[in-house]
């Protein structure tokens, strides 16, 4: 089982700009650029959601450990 995610919406997939929605909410650019987009369909299962939840924290930690924006 794998996870398919994206850094933005399908409708803005051609653009490298951060989500105009997140920016309109007042989020700073680095938060908007660091956002993850996950979409559920009616076919997704509880097990698949649990799989994402168990794998995502370590992935986020790995990326944050590499970032100059996070205080170490």
């Amino acid at each position: 089982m794998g996870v398919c995610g994206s850094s933005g919406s399908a409708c803005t997939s051609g653009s490298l700009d951060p989500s105009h929605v997140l920016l309109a909410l007042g989020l700073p650019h680095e938060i908007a650029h660091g956002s993850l987009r996950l979409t559920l369909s009616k076919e997704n299962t509880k097990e698949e959601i649990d799989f994402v939840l168990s794998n995502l924290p370590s992935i986020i930690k790995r990326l944050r450990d590499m970032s100059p924006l996070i205080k170490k």
Partner: protein
Amino acid sequence: MEQYSKKVMEHFFNPKNVGEIKDADGIGEVGNPRCGDIMKMYIKVKDNVITDIKFLTFGCGAAVATSSMVTEMIKGKTLEEALKITNKEVR
């Protein structure tokens, strides 16, 4: 959908030289939050040679991978040799 090359994937999943150097001889930072790309690099220099180099990068897989690739290219070079490296050589 475009795929990252094997080399880029390798440098993204197993990046080299990630981290900080507390007593760095030189620190450089480029990029900004608006671009979504920020790279910070730390170097240790002895007798004009870059003996150690570390990076921290906020950005996409390619940003992390190229940071890793360029630090591997730079380690062990003199300052003059390192300054000659351009983005074209990082591939």
